[in-house]
């Protein structure tokens, strides 16, 4: 049942873009339904559990579900709903649904709202997963998911939202890391990831230090999420988000995640003094700071943001007190806060939309004729202020009672109650400021012509009115919440808690506190102008935002400093580091290792020495080469040497691959030669000394390492298995190929992806930046080389014949790869060689017949690979090869997988020929004749559109002599262009 709820929420998230596509902003109507449905499901599941009597140790009914996910490491999608989870589930889903409905009128009628609904439903799903999680890993993932959702929701609210979104992310991610640390410690200490087991684990009473450490980590994580001192700054900062986002963030989602975490771990830590002290201190400071700061705001939304901070502070204080009474208060206040805060935010959004401002100073000049909004908003604000007959009053009474009965030294109840009372007085004052600021101010009553603001449509104010009315109904009949708060507080206290709420408790101490609060609050409201004048000059000395920003800047600067150690224009500086490290490691090893196993068999063959000499010649020639062509040719020598080496070692397939790659590498290099200088730099002899020493040392280290560390054991069990069972298991005789496509296909799939990414990288690089201009070939006029058409006649004729044969041959190689030398890689390389021939034979770049949708081929290759992988699930696991019989023949899906390999590899080869050999139109024009080879050809290289713009820009600056604002904006958008223009 719980899984169904979660799946419903996730599905809602997945389909939301589609629904939004058809319904636009009205998608909220549809999206609210599954959320409500999931809420009903959750309640009925819980009611069933309560009836059937399945309860945990504390006596709270509980619904559990465990879906195995990674059984080997004991991680599963563990879901568990006790009373506490039920309370938060209802908040998340019901408030979420209200906000969805509200969004249908808040959002613009036209516009793209797909990401909004996607992220909001995703947010709901993440919160649901968080509160239902019974597995710490799931809990942590959900926690981070809410962080990401809030980041994207804030960030999508326009250009000004970028910085606040990043600051929010930094603070909340830091909290996520703390939670990760706590989760890791808990899993290691208890040996399980199951939250319900961890909470009752004996380790907490046995190991005090551990308990304290985890309590601090959890508390800090929750502080970042719930904007508690000293991490409070991000909450008002994130006000840039649109109103539905803020409403959800403040009422039911983001910040309530922290409260949930604290309540969840309260049974374990309620007796840990660090926990009590931290929570009560941070909570009270935040409550006071938020309440006072709220009173100074002009922006109604900002006022609400500080108010949330303050209310959360009170909640954290209640959890910090930790008595059953206090937890009961926390649960009911969470509910009350969710109702009035979501309503208030939505009303501010209504006012903002109708009056086009939410600034108290501007609203004072308007006449808001919005009777429904005004009344309902007044109700919600009264609930926040703790006025009798409203739910806020009930919850505040419960809170004050808990504070008056707080355990500990005698002064504790007095201090906590006094602080809470002061915070409540300011709460009363800012609640009044909110309503009076919106509707009360009539700065110039006389003129009432233009600035009359009328009521919005009922669909707009319907959702918040519902929330505000619920606060009234539940305030008058608070006993309706008895059951919910009882189970919630029981789960959070870890012992039986009975909650009975009534409108009238008799003449109890907390009533007098409440009355005092209301009395002083009323005085503050009456004297509000004087209060405001008195408070205006004082500002909080340190801005939390500046701290975050400074920390961020310093981190980036520190990164720059660390990066600077390795960054250098001379690549040799950092490229030599690994080589030197290799030498050092080898030297250390030579000094410490003195006992090596015996060499097995005879690792060398007399013929090998021929190859050693061949490779040595090639390597030395490469080092000596003065021109690029020479270097490339001798690179080929080494490559062919390697080919023979592989043959000599019994690796036919590898040898074929090496041979083909060698050919293709040379072909690709030739394509680039025309863009590079013809000769290398001459270096003075003394500059050879250090490179030779480093290279020599590294080479020696390699030789000694290979000699000492290889060839001293028998064949590995894995290889023996492949040799003895490979044929029986796969039906393929080419064991190397069966390893590639049957046994270790996941590796190969990874490699395909790397190839694909390489192809895309090439394409992206060449599309983003133009390649260096081509250089002149310096061909004489009477040279026979001047006419490409004539002198390619032989190779063209040959290619016409050979290219199709080569491509066809490659297909044969592909098909037989499972049994004989061949397979996807080799076949694709042969095919690629065919295309290379077709390209090289063409008289000009343009006429080469290699145009194929290379990116599509790469994508198809990876898709085929992944698709075959999923096919493997028919027989149990990803990428498991199937061996169906087709028309009496033994077929294998490994062959299909090899086709994927083929497509991806050939895609990459085609990409390089197409992109490098036939550069797009914007590429450099080859210079004809013997003009200056190094001449820059920027003029001919820029594409048409920027050229026009440049001309205009030039004309403008020439005409005006100075840069106009539009002009400079144009430049700001195109920094590269402006550089070019400036350069002229």
């Amino acid at each position, binding site marked *: 049942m719980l899984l169904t709820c979660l799946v419903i929420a996730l599905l809602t998230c997945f389909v939301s873009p589609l629904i939004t596509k058809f319904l636009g902003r009205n998608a909220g109507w549809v999206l609210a339904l599954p959320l409500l449905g999931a809420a009903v499901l959750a309640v009925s599941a819980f009611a069933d559990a309560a009836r059937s009597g399945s309860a945990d140790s504390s006596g709270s009914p509980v619904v559990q579900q465990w879906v195995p996910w990674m059984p080997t490491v004991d991680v599963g999608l563990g879901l568990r709903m006790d009373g506490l989870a039920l309370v938060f589930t209802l908040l998340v889903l019901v408030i979420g649904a209200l906000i969805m409905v509200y969004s249908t009128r808040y959002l613009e009628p036209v516009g793209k709202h797909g990401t909004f609904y996607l992220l909001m439903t995703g947010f709901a799903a993440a919160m649901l997963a968080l509160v239902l999680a019974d597995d710490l890993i799931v809990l942590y993932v959900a926690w981070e998911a809410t962080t990401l959702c809030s980041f994207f929701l804030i960030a999508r609210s326009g250009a000004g939202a970028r910085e606040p979104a990043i600051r929010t992310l930094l603070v909340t991610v830091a909290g996520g890391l703390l939670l990760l640390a706590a989760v890791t410690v808990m899993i290691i200490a208890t040996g399980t990831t199951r939250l319900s087991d961890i909470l009752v684990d004996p380790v907490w009473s046995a190991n005090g230090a551990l308990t304290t450490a985890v309590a601090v980590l959890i508390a800090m994580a929750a502080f970042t999420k719930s904007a508690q001192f000293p991490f409070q700054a991000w909450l008002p900062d994130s006000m840039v988000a649109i109103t539905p986002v803020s409403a959800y963030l403040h009422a039911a989602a983001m910040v309530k995640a922290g409260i949930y975490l604290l309540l969840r771990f309260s049974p374990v830590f309620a007796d840990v003094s660090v926990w009590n002290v931290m929570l009560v201190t941070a909570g009270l400071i935040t409550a006071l700071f938020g309440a006072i700061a709220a009173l100074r705001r002009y922006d109604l939304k900002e006022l609400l943001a500080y108010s949330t901070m303050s209310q959360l502070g009170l909640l954290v204080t209640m959890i910090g007190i930790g008595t059953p009474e206090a937890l009961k208060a926390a649960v009911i206040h969470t509910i009350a806060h969710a109702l009035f805060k979501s309503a208030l935010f939505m009303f501010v959004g209504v006012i903002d939309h109708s009056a086009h401002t939410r600034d108290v100073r501007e609203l004072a000049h308007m006449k808001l004729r919005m009777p429904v909004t005004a009344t309902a908003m007044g109700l919600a604000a009264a609930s926040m202020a703790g006025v009798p007959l409203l739910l806020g009053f009930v919850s505040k009474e419960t809170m004050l009672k808990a504070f008056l009965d707080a355990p500990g030294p005698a002064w504790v109840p007095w201090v906590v109650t006094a602080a809470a009372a002061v915070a409540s007085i300011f709460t009363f004052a800012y609640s009044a400021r909110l309503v009076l600021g919106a509707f009360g101010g009539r700065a110039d009553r006389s003129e009432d012509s233009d600035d009359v603001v009328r009521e919005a449509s009922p669909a707009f104010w319907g959702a918040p009115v519902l929330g505000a009315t619920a606060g009234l109904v539940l305030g008058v009949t608070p006993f309706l919440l008895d059951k919910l708060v009882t189970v919630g507080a029981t789960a959070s206290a870890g012992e039986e808690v009975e909650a009975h709420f009534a409108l009238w408790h008799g003449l109890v101490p907390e009533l007098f506190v409440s009355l005092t609060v209301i009395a002083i609050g009323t005085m503050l409201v009456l004297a509000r102008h004087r209060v405001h004048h008195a408070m205006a000059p004082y500002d909080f000395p340190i801005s939390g935002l500046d701290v975050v920003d400074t920390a961020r800047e310093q981190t980036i600067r520190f990164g720059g400093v660390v990066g600077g150690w390795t960054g250098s224009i001379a*690549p*040799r500086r950092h*490229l030599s580091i690994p080589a030197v490290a290799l030498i050092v490691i080898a030297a250390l090893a030579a000094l410490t290792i003195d006992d090596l196993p015996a060499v097995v068999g*005879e*690792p*060398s063959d007399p013929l*090998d020495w021929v190859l050693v000499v061949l*490779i040595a010649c090639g390597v*030395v020639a*490469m*080092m000596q080469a003065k021109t690029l062509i020479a*270097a490339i040719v001798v690179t080929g020598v*080494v*490559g062919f040497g*390697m080919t023979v080496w*592989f043959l*000599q070692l*019994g690796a*036919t*397939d*590898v040898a074929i*691959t090496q041979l083909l790659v060698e050919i293709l*590498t040379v072909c*690709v290099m030739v394509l*680039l030669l025309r863009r590079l*200088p013809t*000769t*290398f730099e001459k*270096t003075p002899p003394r500059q050879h000394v*250090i490179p030779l020493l480093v*290279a020599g040392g*590294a*080479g020696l*280290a*390699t*030789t*000694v390492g*290979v000699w000492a560390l*290889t*060839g001293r054991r028998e*064949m*590995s069990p894995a*290889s023996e298995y*492949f*040799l*003895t069972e490979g*044929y029986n298991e796969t039906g393929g*005789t*080419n*064991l*190397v190929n069966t*390893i590639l496509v049957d046994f270790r296909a996941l*590796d*190969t799939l990874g490699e395909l992806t790397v190839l694909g990414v390489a192809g895309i990288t090439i394409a992206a*690089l*060449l599309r983003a*930046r133009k*390649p*260096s201009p081509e250089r002149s070939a310096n061909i004489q006029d009477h040279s026979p080389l001047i006419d490409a058409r004539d002198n390619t006649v032989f190779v063209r004729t040959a290619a016409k014949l050979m290219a199709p044969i080569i491509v066809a041959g490659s297909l044969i190689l592909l098909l037989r790869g499972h049994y004989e030398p061949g397979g996807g890689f080799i076949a694709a390389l042969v095919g690629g060689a065919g295309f290379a021939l077709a390209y090289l034979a063409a008289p000009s770049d343009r006429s080469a017949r290699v145009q194929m949708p290379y990116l599509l081929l790469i994508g198809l290759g990876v898709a085929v690979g992944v698709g075959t992988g999923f096919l493997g699930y028919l027989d149990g696991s990803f990428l498991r090869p199937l061996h169906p019989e087709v028309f009496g023949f033994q077929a294998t899906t490994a062959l299909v997988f090899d086709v994927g390999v083929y497509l991806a590899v050939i895609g990459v080869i085609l990409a390089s020929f197409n992109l490098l050999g036939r550069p797009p139109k914007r590429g450099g024009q080859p210079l004809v004749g013997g003009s200056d080879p*190094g001449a820059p050809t920027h003029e001919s290289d820029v594409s048409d559109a920027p050229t026009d713009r440049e001309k205009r820009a030039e004309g403008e600056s020439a005409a005006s002599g100075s840069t106009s604002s539009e002009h400079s904006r144009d430049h700001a958008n195109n920094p590269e262009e402006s550089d070019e223009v400036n350069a002229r």
Partner: protein
Amino acid sequence: MTVAITAGLLVFGAVYLMMKREMLRVILGFILLGHAGNIVLMAAGGTSRRDLPYGSPEDLSTIADPLPQAFVLTAIVIAFSITIVMLVLAVTGNDDDDTAAAAKEVQE
């Protein structure tokens, strides 16, 4: 021993070329380094058994280890694609491989 010497030679050339200024030489160095890595992988499987790993052999004592072969096969293709990417990097971006032209500019 021969394989060890070959690997050493390849690393020698690779490191030397990578400490040069031109991107193309650095790339050639990387190609050599790729060869060296491949031959080391082959050595890891043992070079005393050199018969082709085909079919279902009876006597395993002379058959080459197929596992490093499979690794090397894919490694070669990956190295190829990395080479292409590096080659593209050599021709995009700053045209500073041209040391002759750069020197001329400095003189001017």
